[in-house]
């Protein structure tokens, strides 16, 4: 394979890493006058463009001895991750301007997203592990980047929890490798498909460990406990990045691992896998929603809510038992809409909290009067998180629940029943928040300015939330195409 071809395949991730270096250099040379934010954006844009070139250039399939694979699935996530990161960068530029280590912040962000791009392309346990650890490490540092008490506490907790999770994940990898004799995901899949009954137990052991390791990123119960603290303590931009990008990458990995690494549907462990995620999904939803009911801090509400949402998405993971793209396309579509929704919510909260200096829900009273646009966008996003029409969240939920029921498994119908009850519970806290913002009277009616960049991103996010709520067909088609890449041809 020629260097050029390799470059074509590796382009996005390489560009992002390169960008990280450039940003760092620029920061070193120009100090605080450097346009690091812009550079970051340019890098992200270039990476996205390169991803388009990959499609045009016919880059398809594994390279480097199967270390990574470029397919529509990885492209879907490449776009998603770069877009999300760009949105975070734009939406929080005002905040970033005040951060001391701005260059490092952007640089780490780029490293993190670059590793995630590699992560979703990984086709090999080692690549996967290294990419995962790279993005994790960057995220740990990002969580603590403002270095105040809360931020550093969040960073430390995130890191130590993450280290344990990484060890468990690795243990699972070790067993997979040991049994299959290869680190290549297709190779492992080959083994799993033909695994004798004698290896059933270690196989279960391995995939639960792996699921736990990835579950940490997905933030599903019982691997979720770090989420509220980190979302609250980490700077909001980092929180939003974690809640969307990191979670999406987690789900991408779990899908890739299952379909490419564990043989997909129809293997002896399919059912165990589905049950595992079914239970996790139900527990996540219950924990997240019920926990959020009693929260008063908006960032913690969003934290708990993201646990619950992970539960919703995991319904799609549990739906893998069926042949076809039913389950994964639901996950992909949900992640796409969830990215817009949750980003909108987080960035709005960021914009408001910056001005108010408070994350308490009571300080959001009458936000509609003080910052009408932000309040409307936030309400829209919360409605979408609840799953109310005409937002994308509604379609996403219906679609993913539909995919679970399409499998024709009775217990999945039960899981969906739990999920829909949870939707009802979640309405309670989401809509209470909406009501507080839209209808209550503010104590202090001075208008809150929302920075231009944030405004733009918020508008874009709400436009996406509405657009995919009213016209979801294109994204659903994309998600199905992407999911189809996971299946053996």
């Amino acid at each position, binding site marked *: 394979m020629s260097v050029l071809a390799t470059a074509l395949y590796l382009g996005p991730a390489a560009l992002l890493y390169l960008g990280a270096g450039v940003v760092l250099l620029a920061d070193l040379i120009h100090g605080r006058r450097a346009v690091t934010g812009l550079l970051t954006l340019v890098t992200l844009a270039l990476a996205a463009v390169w991803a388009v070139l990959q499609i045009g250039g016919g880059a398809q399939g594994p390279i480097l001895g199967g270390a990574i694979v470029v397919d529509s699935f990885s492209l879907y996530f490449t776009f998603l991750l770069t877009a999300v990161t760009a949105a975070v960068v734009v939406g929080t530029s005002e905040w970033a301007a005040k951060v001391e280590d701005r260059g490092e912040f952007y640089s780490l962000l780029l490293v993190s997203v670059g590793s995630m791009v590699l992560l979703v392309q990984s086709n090999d346990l080692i690549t996967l592990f290294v990419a995962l650890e790279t993005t994790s490490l960057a995220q740990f540092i990002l969580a603590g980047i403002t270095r105040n008490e809360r931020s550093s506490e969040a960073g430390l907790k995130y890191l130590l929890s993450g280290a344990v999770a990484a060890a468990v994940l690795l243990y699972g990898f070790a067993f997979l490798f040991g049994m299959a004799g290869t680190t290549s995901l297709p190779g492992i899949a080959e083994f799993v498909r033909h695994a004798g009954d004698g290896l059933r137990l270690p196989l279960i052991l391995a995939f639960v460990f792996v699921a736990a390791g990835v579950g940490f990123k997905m933030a599903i119960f019982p691997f979720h406990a770090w989420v509220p603290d980190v979302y609250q303590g980490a700077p909001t931009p980092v929180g939003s990045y974690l809640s969307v990008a990191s979670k999406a990458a987690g789900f991408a990995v779990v899908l890739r691992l299952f379909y490419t690494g564990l043989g997909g549907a129809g293997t002896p462990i399919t059912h165990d896998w589905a049950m595992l995620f079914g239970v996790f999904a139900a527990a996540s939803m219950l924990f997240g929603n019920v926990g959020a009911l009693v929260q008063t801090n908006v960032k913690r509400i969003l934290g708990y809510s993201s646990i619950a949402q992970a539960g919703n998405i995991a319904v799609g993971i549990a739906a893998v038992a069926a042949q076809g793209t039913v389950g994964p396309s*639901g996950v992909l579509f949900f992640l796409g809409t969830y990215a817009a929704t949750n980003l909108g919510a987080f960035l709005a909260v960021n914009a408001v909290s910056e001005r108010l200096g408070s994350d308490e829900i009571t300080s959001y009273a009458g936000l509609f009067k003080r910052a009408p646009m932000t309040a409307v966008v936030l309400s829209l996003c919360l409605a979408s998180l609840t799953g109310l029409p005409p937002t994308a969240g*509604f379609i996403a939920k219906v679609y993913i629940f539909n*995919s679970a029921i399409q499998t*024709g498994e009775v217990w999945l119908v039960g899981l969906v029943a739990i999920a829909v009850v949870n939707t*009802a519970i979640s309405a*309670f806290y989401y809509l*209470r928040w909406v*009501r507080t913002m839209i209808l209550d009277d503010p104590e202090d009616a001075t208008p809150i300015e929302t920075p231009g960049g944030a405004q733009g991103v918020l508008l874009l996010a709400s436009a996406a939330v509405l657009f995919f709520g009213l016209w979801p067909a294109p994204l659903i088609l994309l998600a199905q195409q992407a999911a189809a890449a996971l299946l053996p041809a």
Partner: protein
Amino acid sequence: MLTLFLLLPVTGAVLSLFLPEEKQHDAKWIALVFSGAAFAVSVVVFALFNASVPGYQFVNTFEWIAASDAGFRIRYTVGVDGLSAPLVLLLGLLSVVSVLVSWRIEVKAKQYFAWLLFMETAVAGVFLSLDLIQFFLFWELELLPMFMLISQWGSGRRLYSATKFLIYTLAGSAFMLVGFLVLGATAGTFDIAELTAKPVTQAVVPLTFVFWAIMLAFLVKLPTFPVHTWLPDAHTDAPTAVSVMLAGVLLKMGGYGIIRIALPLLPQQAHDSRLILASLAGFSVLWGAVITLRQTDLKRLVAYSSVSHMGYVLLGVSAMGSLGLSGAAMQMFTHGTITGLLFVVVGLIYDRTHTREISQMSGLMHRMPVVGTVFVIAGLASLGLPGMSGFVAEMTTFLGSLDAHPVATAAGIFGVVLSAGYILWTVQRVLHGPATDRWKELTDATSWWEVTAMASLVFVILAVGIYPALLTTAVQAGIAPIAQIMEGVS
């Protein structure tokens, strides 16, 4: 045409949101114009509705979500038949009425009217949708405006009531979604017409579960004992216009859903459940009525009477025959107008007296003869007086249900007796008796918007009561195919 009906109110809502703050009182004019236009459309639809043509009319459709596999092909499809056409008309009318009775809203007027119009679109979508997912979409869409309207412009424990409404409805609709998805997954389509033509007979979970999962949402909305307690609270604390909409059209979503979806899609299961449904119906009628008897809060009283009256809808449905279903369909329409009118009147009284306690009132007839007269008319209609629309509907229901459910029907008829009790007792306590000094300053409702709101409803009530063919032609056309399905089941 129907899409226009759907879009008009929401357009108005958006426009009114974009009004500048200082002109926000013009929102009512926007609301009036757009709801009026929607009403005009609904009148045209009803007038042009051809009862002799089978199937749905004025159908608009296009592929909305055409997913390649995954059984998620969803069409946007709107259409009316004889069942939904009267409800659409009712919605159009009551929306105008509710805008009119909100004429004096001062607080956050543009938001208020925006939510109100938004709600109209949502409810319209429920009545017009011919696709399960689309139906569910609009069903859920109605929650947010309702929650907002009650929790902000309501009174008393408004947040509690709004939340209660929300939780009840969401809990119900949650299971409905599961039911819809199971049906859709089994049949491979969400199209109501297709599902009606070929009912599902076997699914991954027992169809009885599916039936009750779907019914639960409708029963909550109807509402039926024992899932009715959200209604009195919601009504009591809601602003007048919202009460009008709630009683007038939102409750009908439940009955409509039962007749449009639960019955024809799962005829066998519905048939097997008819005794339970009839028992619930009879019980609701009596339960609502005896509780109404001892209410001291005017709005709560009308609210509980709704529980009783909507029991007739379920009674008619539970007979699962052509007449019972027609009775239920007509009862939905008539209850919408009658209870809508009652809430209008109660609202007008409340606006003036600022109390809803019946014991505080006396002799209001002296101060407000117009309001009082309309109150009496609405009350008489509510107690099923012949010559008014309620009688026709109730009688048809009873004629349809006696053979199938004699005891429940007897309970229903006894409910009519009790309704005379609570209505007349209320009239006596509120309107009659000596004129007291406390209400010396009260003024009658003579503004054009108040008179228009009341007169239009009175007109409809009397017109349908005296010449029921206005309604029955359409209803028969709508019910006939469903009744045919139900009567084919044993």
